[in-house]
C-alpha cells in the first residue's frame, strides 16, 4: 500500500491538532483582553459590562470611575454577577 507510511503521520497531525483545540486554544482565549478608556466607557454606556475596582474600599471611596463597583480582591469571586457571560472590566490605579 503506497499510502501506508503517511497514515501514522496523518494520525499524529490530527491528534496534535485535536490536543491544541481542546487544551491550548481555550487557555489562550480565556486570557483577559486589555482595553482602553474609550472602550470601557462604551461598554458601560451600553450596559454590557460590570466595571470593578478590586482594591480597597478606602481607595474606592476616595475616587473611582462613576458607575463602577468595589469588590476588594480578597473578597473575589463573591460579588461577581451570576451571569458568567456578563462582561467584566477590572481597573486599578494605572500602569505599574
Amino acid at each position, binding site marked *: 500500500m503506497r499510502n501506508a507510511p503517511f497514515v501514522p503521520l496523518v494520525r499524529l497531525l490530527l491528534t496534535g491538532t485535536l490536543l491544541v483545540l481542546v487544551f491550548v486554544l481555550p487557555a489562550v482565549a480565556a486570557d*483577559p483582553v486589555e482595553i482602553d*478608556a474609550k472602550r470601557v466607557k462604551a461598554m458601560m454606556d451600553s450596559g454590557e459590562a460590570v466595571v470593578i475596582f478590586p*482594591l480597597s474600599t478606602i481607595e474606592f471611596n*476616595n475616587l473611582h470611575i*462613576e458607575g463602577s463597583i468595589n469588590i476588594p480582591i480578597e473578597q473575589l*469571586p463573591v460579588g461577581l454577577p451570576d451571569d458568567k457571560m456578563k462582561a*467584566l472590566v477590572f481597573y*486599578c490605579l*494605572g500602569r505599574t
Partner: protein
Amino acid sequence: MAVKEGYQNAYVFRGGLPEWIMAGYPTVTHETLPKVDIANMTVQELKQKIDAKEDFVLLDVRIPVDAAQYKLEASQLQFIPMNDLPKRYTEIPAGKPLVVIDKIGKRATMASRYLSAKGFDEIYKVGGGMNQWIKSGLPTKISK
C-alpha cells in the same frame, strides 16, 4: 481569577483611573482623605532603620496573596492589608513612627493619609514599595 471562575468575557483596563481622568470621563468621590504630605523613605534608609533595631512600626499593607509570596524580615513588621485598615488600624501601636510599605509605592500614600486622619502623626511611605526593595537587592523572604 474571574476567568478561573468561568467568566468568559473578562477585560483589563490597565490605564486605570489616570487614563480615565485624562479622557475626561466622570469620577466619584465618597470620602476625601485630608491632603497631607507624607514623607518619603528610601528602601536603603528603611534597611538601616531595621538593622539598627530602631523602635518604629513597619506596616505592610499589601494584599494577602502578595504578602504570602514574599516579604522582608524585620522585627518591626506588622501586616494589615489596606482593605482591613478601617477595622484594624487600632492594632497599630500609637506613639511610634510609622513606615508604610506597599507593593510598588502607589498605595502607601493613600494608606498613610488614612492613618493620618486616624491620628497617627509621624508617618513615612517607602518609595517604590516592596518592588523597589527587591530591585535594590535587599534581603527578601520568598515563600515556596
